[in-house]
């Protein structure tokens, strides 16, 4: 592998890791604060793609479509929380798994009912077309760079939100002692709604960022959900920092595994292991630390 290819793959891995982080954050926050398994996060990723595509088409502008799409995402996330998830917090995990699995089926097929089976188009906004030269001979698409930077900025903003603001304190306090914060006058139902919307919107934004790169189709969120769940497990349930480290690790392992393993082990075996590399890494980490990286 040449140096320039190495640099390019590092950027690819970063970008994948950042997107996974956005999806994983929602899952891990909901795990940590509400103690709830949420398999419907993948559906929100998909909805992000569809909503932005539709809003962009309706307004003929990506930059108008973006806030509209996010507003619609917030509404959907609120509806999910108010109508379904709210009733599941005190339930056994199997009820949570199944209800959110059911939601996933509903959203996937609901998208077909609304948008049809043909994939929907989403273009790269004109301002982000083209590529930049990272190193001599290495042209990297601006859009992918922008995705990495934007997702990274969201990550920093989230870190600020959680570590510096009142809402962030309440999120951390709520994850710790649920009854106590109610006794101190905090409306926990509202806090949960906020947390779910925050996580859901971040997942949806990941779908929006992914839209111009991949296909906006039904079920587009499912494989991402699975990878995000792996990040959440590796990082430690409920740990935002852990999810970040894990997402970067998964992004890099996946990107480099796909390139290096077939070279090292031959096409057949190498590719087979490259498909599994993420899960192998996860198994190794869990043997080492059964509760994930963030555990002490």
């Amino acid at each position, binding site marked *: 592998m040449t140096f320039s290819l190495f640099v390019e793959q590092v950027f690819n891995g970063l970008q994948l890791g950042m997107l996974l982080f956005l999806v994983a954050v929602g899952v891990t926050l909901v795990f940590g604060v509400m103690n709830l398994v949420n398999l419907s996060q993948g559906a929100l990723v998909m909805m992000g793609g569809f909503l932005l595509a539709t809003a962009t088409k309706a307004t003929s502008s990506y930059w108008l479509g973006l806030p509209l799409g996010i507003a619609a995402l917030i509404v959907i996330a609120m509806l999910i929380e108010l109508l379904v998830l709210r009733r599941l917090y005190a*339930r056994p995990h199997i*009820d949570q798994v199944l209800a959110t699995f*059911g939601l*996933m089926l509903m959203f996937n097929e609901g998208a*077909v009912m609304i948008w049809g089976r043909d994939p929907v188009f989403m273009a790269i906004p004109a301002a982000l077309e083209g590529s930049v030269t990272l190193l001599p001979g290495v042209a990297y698409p601006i859009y992918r760079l922008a995705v990495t930077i934007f997702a990274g900025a969201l990550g920093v903003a989230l870190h600020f939100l959680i570590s510096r603001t009142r809402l962030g304190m309440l999120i951390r306090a709520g994850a710790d002692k649920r009854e106590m914060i109610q006794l101190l006058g905090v409306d926990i139902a509202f806090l949960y709604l906020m947390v779910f919307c925050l996580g859901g919107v971040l997942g949806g934004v990941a779908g929006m960022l992914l839209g111009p790169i991949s296909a906006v189709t039904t079920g587009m969120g499912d494989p991402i959900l699975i990878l995000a*769940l*792996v990040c959440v*497990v590796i990082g430690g349930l409920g740990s935002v920092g852990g999810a970040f480290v894990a997402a970067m690790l998964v992004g890099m392992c996946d990107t480099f595994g796909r390139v290096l393993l077939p070279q090292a082990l031959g096409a*057949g075996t190498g590719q087979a292991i490259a498909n599994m590399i993420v*899960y192998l890494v996860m198994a190794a980490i869990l043997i080492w630390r059964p509760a994930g990286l963030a555990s002490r």
Partner: protein
Amino acid sequence: MNPMFRNTILVALAAIFAAAPWALDEFSLNLVTRMLIFGIAAMGVDLLVGFAGLVPLGHAAFLGLGAYAAGILTDMGLESAFVVWPLAIMVGALGAAIIGGLSLRSSGLYFIMITLAFAQMIYYVFQSLRAYGGDDGFALTRNTFAGLIDPYDSRAFYFLTLAITLVIFLLLLRVVASPFGVALRAARDNEARLAAVGLPAFGYRLVAFILSGALCAFAGVLLANLTGYITPGYGSWPQSGELLMMVLLGTAGTIWGGLLGAAIFVALSEVLSEVSDHWMFYLGLLIVLRVLLAGGETTKLLKRLDPRRRADG
């Protein structure tokens, strides 16, 4: 339940199952066979969900392991079910021992996610088996029974499946009532107390996990024989989710609930998909409603049906 009433129901059920092959056309009979097969898998999953209080989201992997082991062994020239089936079930049990050994160090949400991740790993192994069709899968010639049963006779296969299901059902009833079953539930309700009397919860859970993995593998073997075709889809994670749905649609923690839930699920997806191409939407809706409207009924039932608690008062 009143024993008289229960016995009447059991006799009626037995009569229905015995008469089915003559009352139903081949399609419906195969559908019932499928219900029984998924019933075996769901009973296995229920052992973990209902009795050990663990929720696995990766048991389709064992369904797939059983099917692939059976298919590959058959492809290697072993045709007799008396050889292939036990071996395939052992492969499933071995896989369950490894995965269970690693997953059971955690519990709760971690357990859900870790079982899912291991199942994904196995799914990708299936997908990368180029000699066995990769993602497309491969055909399996039905296993033979030393001439005792014609494997291609739907009625014979139905009765075989029915007999296997019954034996497993009765065995499981004994298992959950045995000291092992009691210890399993004790571990679910109060791990510390179990540890205090010197019984490690891990061991009981691992045995339950292996047993449930072996049952899913058995179901995989049967399903592969019924279908005559094996694909990685057997081990996909939505399939794992469906197994959990079956447990929920029946009643978790009752063993017979697994059978009932599988029957409901197979019938439901058959009927829904005939009504609409968007059947998945309605299936999802039904699941969500079932969970919301049940109002924690599953947990209440768990408690009510627990013989130890019932004895307490």
